[in-house]
């Protein structure tokens, strides 16, 4: 089969570029622990409202005894609950997401937050918000006819203006 020399060179360059990209990703994955979200923690989606951690009173922002900030959110067709949370800027925040019905996803622009929320599993992602402001929370997995209306909001305020909520008596933040 005849292949034009110029075409052959361009194919070699293309393969070389792909090899470079894959090589960088492999090196980071093997030596710097850059992996896809891999928290495996199961939960019964049918009884979330009865669970200690994701009962209605424990949703939203909580601070544990060590000062770590947790945000627990429930995704359900077609919203994230609670609808609005307030967190401090430039602070490590651990988000824990669960779904009450079907497969959802969550994306918060300008942050590292992008993960699937699989029914029966808890999706845990550590994130932070570089600047104060309103950040939209968007569903990025098609979940039904109302998918494009599925959103929530995170209000990010300056660290010194943020008032930590009272820790729940259930101790769910631990």
């Amino acid at each position: 089969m005849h292949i034009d020399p110029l075409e052959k060179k361009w194919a070699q360059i293309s393969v070389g570029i792909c090899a470079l990209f894959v090589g960088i990703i492999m090196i980071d994955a093997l030596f710097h622990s850059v992996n896809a979200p891999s928290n495996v923690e199961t939960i019964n989606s049918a009884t979330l409202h009865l669970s200690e951690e994701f009962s209605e009173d424990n949703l939203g922002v909580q601070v544990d005894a060590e000062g770590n900030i947790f945000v627990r959110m429930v995704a359900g067709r077609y919203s994230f609950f609670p609808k609005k949370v307030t967190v401090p800027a430039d602070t490590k925040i651990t988000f824990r997401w669960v779904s009450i019905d079907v497969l959802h996803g969550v994306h918060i622009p300008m942050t590292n937050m992008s993960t699937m929320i699989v029914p029966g599993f808890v999706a845990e992602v550590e994130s932070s918000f570089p600047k104060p402001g309103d950040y939209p929370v968007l569903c990025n997995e098609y979940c039904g006819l109302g998918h494009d209306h599925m959103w929530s909001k995170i209000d990010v305020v300056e660290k010194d203006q943020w008032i930590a909520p009272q820790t729940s008596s259930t101790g769910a933040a631990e």
Partner: protein
Amino acid sequence: MTELNEEERKKILESAPVGTWALMVTVGISMVIGWLFLYYGVFLSRGIIN
């Protein structure tokens, strides 16, 4: 457009395709720079998810 004689036509066809090479290298380098910016400047700088 001026008509090329056979000699000119042969010279063009047998010479190195400098313009095509320049385009290939420009596209290749731009793609690599763009990818590296997105990977190191956007993806990794926003924090690793594990």
